[in-house]
């Protein structure tokens, strides 16, 4: 019991355990699971990542002037929703060319409030996807 | 896992003769939507200190039938019975609605019919 008194007393003079966020940035480990990155040139448009993604955070939808790529026969464009993604990295494991076409970084997404039409924009893409299936 | 089929009328007697409270414990009651208005009710038991010994009593019922309560034999069944009432919209003796859903809710999320 007296040790706990002593501990509590010395704790008064210790530095706090928490860091002074946002003045001190949070250090993320190199292997932290964060945002998914995409390399358009290396992608072969096999759509495996889209199928593997549990919440459906990756969508390939047809657009007017699709990215230049021989493999891209249907004129699709990659879309990724960082606010839907759960960072499980299923997509990276499914991708035949990990690290070149699809990889996982250790970054967090921006705060969504700053973005315009976070939800509505994505719903439109989902609708477009449904129409084309 | 051992599955034993019983009839709705005999389920109480079967469980009564089987259940020894120092050897078995009730895991849960489970419902399973079979068709539009039919469901399977399961009583799942497991044995203490045995390697994965699980016994399931099951019966098939119409959604309109009333499932007998086993609370007088196994007090802890009350919570699973109330869950079944909520999720499947069936009647269980002495268990009222309102564990998850509102008391006057019309929904029965896990039954076969669409809401």
């Amino acid at each position, binding site marked *: 019991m007296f040790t706990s008194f002593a501990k509590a007393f010395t704790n008064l003079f210790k530095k706090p355990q928490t860091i002074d966020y946002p003045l001190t940035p949070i250090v993320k480990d190199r292997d932290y699971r964060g945002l998914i990155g995409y390399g358009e040139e290396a992608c072969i448009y096999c759509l495996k990542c889209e199928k593997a993604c549990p919440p459906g955070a990756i969508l390939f939808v047809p657009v007017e002037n699709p990215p230049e790529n021989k493999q891209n026969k249907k004129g699709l464009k990659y879309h990724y929703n960082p606010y839907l993604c759960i960072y499980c990295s299923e997509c990276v494991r499914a991708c035949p060319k990990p690290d070149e076409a699809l990889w996982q970084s250790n970054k967090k997404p921006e705060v969504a409030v700053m973005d315009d039409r976070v939800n509505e924009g994505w719903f439109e893409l989902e609708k477009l996807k449904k129409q084309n299936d | 896992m051992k599955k034993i089929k019983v009839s709705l009328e005999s389920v109480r007697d079967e469980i009564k003769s089987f259940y020894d409270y120092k050897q078995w414990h009730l895991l849960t009651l489970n419902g399973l939507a079979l068709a539009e208005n039919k469901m399977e009710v399961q009583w799942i038991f*497991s044995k203490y200190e045995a390697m994965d010994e699980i016994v399931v009593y099951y019966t098939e019922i119409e959604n309109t039938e009333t499932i007998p309560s086993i609370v007088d034999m196994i007090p802890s069944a009350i919570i699973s019975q109330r869950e079944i009432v909520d999720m499947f919209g069936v009647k269980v003796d002495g268990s009222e609605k309102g564990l998850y859903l509102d008391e006057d809710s019309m929904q029965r999320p896990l039954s076969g019919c669409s809401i």
Partner: protein
Amino acid sequence: MKKTINIPLGSQHISLLEPVRFKFECENEKIISVDSDVGFVHRGIERACTTKFKFDAIGYVVARVCGLCAITHSLSYTAAIEKLLGGEITKKAKYLRILLLELDRVHSHMLCLSHTCENAGFEAMFMRIMGDRELVMEIQELLTGNRVQFDYINIGGVNRDISSEVAQKIVNNLYEVKQRVLGYMDEFTNNWSLSLKFKTIGALSLDDAYRLNAIGPLARASGLNIDVRNEIGYLPFSEVGFVMQTHSEGDINARNIVRLNEILNSILMCENILSGLPEGEIFTKLKGKPNGEAVVRFEAPRGELMYYVKGNGSAMLDRVRIKTPTFASIPAFSHIFVGENYADAPAILASFDPCLSCTAK
């Protein structure tokens, strides 16, 4: 005139981490009957599993049932699917699964212990345990890539391999945690103000534990030998040094001691795993679609967790039934409250370590 008064505890209450409502009927200070309402955070996960997601994604869905025992949920579901697909995973994957399972148990028990201290009015201890819990959270993050949602378990194995630096860091941190836990052990047994709040309060007798089908640390504190780790064969718990921890008193103090002993046992198991980690692959690809029924049980930090999965040979499942530990213990909780003082209710409640987001699914 009516002799009793009704006092609600919750749905929002200073002593609760999650919403639940108990309605106590009290006569002076004594509680004479209890009614509970647990469905405040119902999210319909069982239904979502059979209508929205394919079977290979559900492991990630059920992990969201609960933040504290996410790993047990995804593990139970995955084990059920592996049973239906009929594959065998590698030994290394099994060991890594146990490793994370036990780390999860350590941090969950620490959270519970700190919360009991807080509800007994011992804030300094709460801070201390929560601070030390960071040591475990840190290694979990290193191992899996996230603090809370580990997403570590996959149908067929685990998602990440463990590097030797991470293994070293885990050993170091666990050593540190062990020293701290031995310190708490002393505190919890000898501190006078804690024993005043904990000893002989909220007791559950062995016979009642049997009768009410109590599970987890709650039952083990009453002397009931129920630990699913002892009763299943998919993971080699006995190989890595699992020992069941029981106590005979059944009161709050007994539950705390059981939890402390379990932390020490879990740390021992983690150390054994890391020193004897087998070589090999961490992932085996399992083919096919689940067909048939499977019941799988695991020991979550709060007790026995059960998954019932029924597949019909297609990618969508017929039924996923989740029976969570707190859900099954609610009748026992209500029984314990009767006859206690209302003032002790928060401390008793915390000693159950209730997890309501599990309960309501």
